[in-house]
């Protein structure tokens, strides 16, 4: 018998040992009395698979781009399987990016793992390019952060080691 340790046992499925016992009993010619009483009620499992919130579905794009025709140089980007982590970060950086005159994001519903990012530019660059620029600037900043942290962490560890020696 095996259990997916974070998955509830599905109802209505006979356990392996139960099936074996029934099989043996039939071979030996026993009548198996039908189960009486505590037949577990069939509960359909409506819970969506955990993966559905993380992995892209078949044929699903990571980002759908829709041109907002109501205004010039405006686009709505729908990011699938992403949340505030990316949305808020991108939005804030877009507001600091050159030529962007509007940037906002929303999560249409908390149960759908997607967010919409609406970007409008002054026409010098496309909204698409603005998002690319913002992402690249963020990637660069994260790289700086990684280096700065490593440097500082090593220094702190060295200082700790020196202090420990000193106190001994």
């Amino acid at each position, binding site marked *: *018998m*095996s*259990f*997916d*340790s*974070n998955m*509830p*046992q599905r109802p209505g499925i006979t356990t392996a040992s139960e099936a074996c016992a029934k099989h043996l009993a039939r071979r030996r010619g026993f009548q198996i009395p039908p189960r009486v009483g505590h037949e577990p009620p069939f509960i359909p499992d409506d819970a969506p698979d*955990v*993966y559905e*919130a*993380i*992995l892209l579905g078949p044929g699903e794009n990571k*980002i759908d*781009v829709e041109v907002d025709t109501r205004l010039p140089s405006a686009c709505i*980007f729908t*990011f699938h399987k*992403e949340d*505030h*982590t*990316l949305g*808020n*970060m*991108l*939005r*804030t950086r877009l507001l*600091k*990016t050159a*030529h962007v005159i509007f940037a906002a994001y929303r999560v249409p519903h908390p149960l759908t793992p997607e967010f919409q990012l609406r970007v409008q530019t002054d026409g*010098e*660059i*496309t909204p*698409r*390019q603005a*998002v*690319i*620029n*913002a*992402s*690249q*600037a*963020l*990637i*660069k*900043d*994260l*790289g*700086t*952060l*990684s*280096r*700065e*942290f*490593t*440097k*500082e*962490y*090593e220094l*702190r560890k060295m200082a*700790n080691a020196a202090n420990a020696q000193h106190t001994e």
Partner: protein
Amino acid sequence: MEFEMDLEPTGPQVTVREAEPYRVDFRLSAVDLAFANSLRRTMLSEVPTLALDLIEIESNTSVLPDEFLAHRLGMIPLNSLNCDHDLEYTRDCDCEDHCVRCSVTLSLHARCGQGMMSVYARDLVIVGERINQSIGDPVTTDPEGKGPLICKLRKGQEIKMTCLAKKGTAKEHAKWAPTAAVGFEYDPNNNLRHVDYWYEQDAAKEWPVSENAAWEPAANPDQPFDYDAEPTTFYFDVESIGNLEPDMILQQSIVSLQRKLATTVGELSGEGEGRIGEDAEMMGANDPDAYEPPEGIDGNMTSYGSGAPGGWNSAQTPYGATPYGQTSYGF
């Protein structure tokens, strides 16, 4: 646009205040709230680690039902050294069911002969090959090195099971979380008035300030309130469960954020034909927002840089090297 770029002339700044085996406390400055919060969110939920995911029970005569044991086993922290780099997700792996590149197999067998027996995480034994020397080892932080208690057995009771550890993230299930907690604070003196304190007589007397308040000055009450001020300094306290080193948790979260952003860049620049050349022209050297390769690749580096092989600063981002980087940890 110059004024916008002047806000962050040098990028994020870090001061590591405390570094302990299972904890790192640091101050992050010259970033915005969204950046710091995204970092916090990824550390909590998107750093891949290893946890027991599939339990094959051969024999269980203990008082705990199989599901109960399987759930308990899932929660046991396992060493996840270089998990992101070395191990594949089982769903992405080329193998039939599972293999050494996407899983670690552990076995647990205990039988009680006399009296009462406690089964601890240390009783989990690695079976067969594994991808590096310590991945999958149960984390033991107690002085006796026992690890968490799995169950207790009485005379004659036995448990025997094979457990499959897989890579995953806390977004899927909390058992894959690398952090016990991430402390996060900004503006300890409430200069920005993001907090509206409830008080009886005097808020300043009734609400003690946190220790972080010593790291930045309180606003002068005589000065007028600055409505445009934004938080730029953040105090993080990352507590590791023990499966990953605390600095690794941060580095990993940076990598996973960079990967997300690189995917965005890849998706958006891959689709629009004809647009790319046009934009590339427009994005010439005079545009401060244009992507520049990370320092260390273009040689524009401090003494820590210039990509010494295997050094702690090779400065590759997943974007800088290959978009979906089988690269270093970004440091």
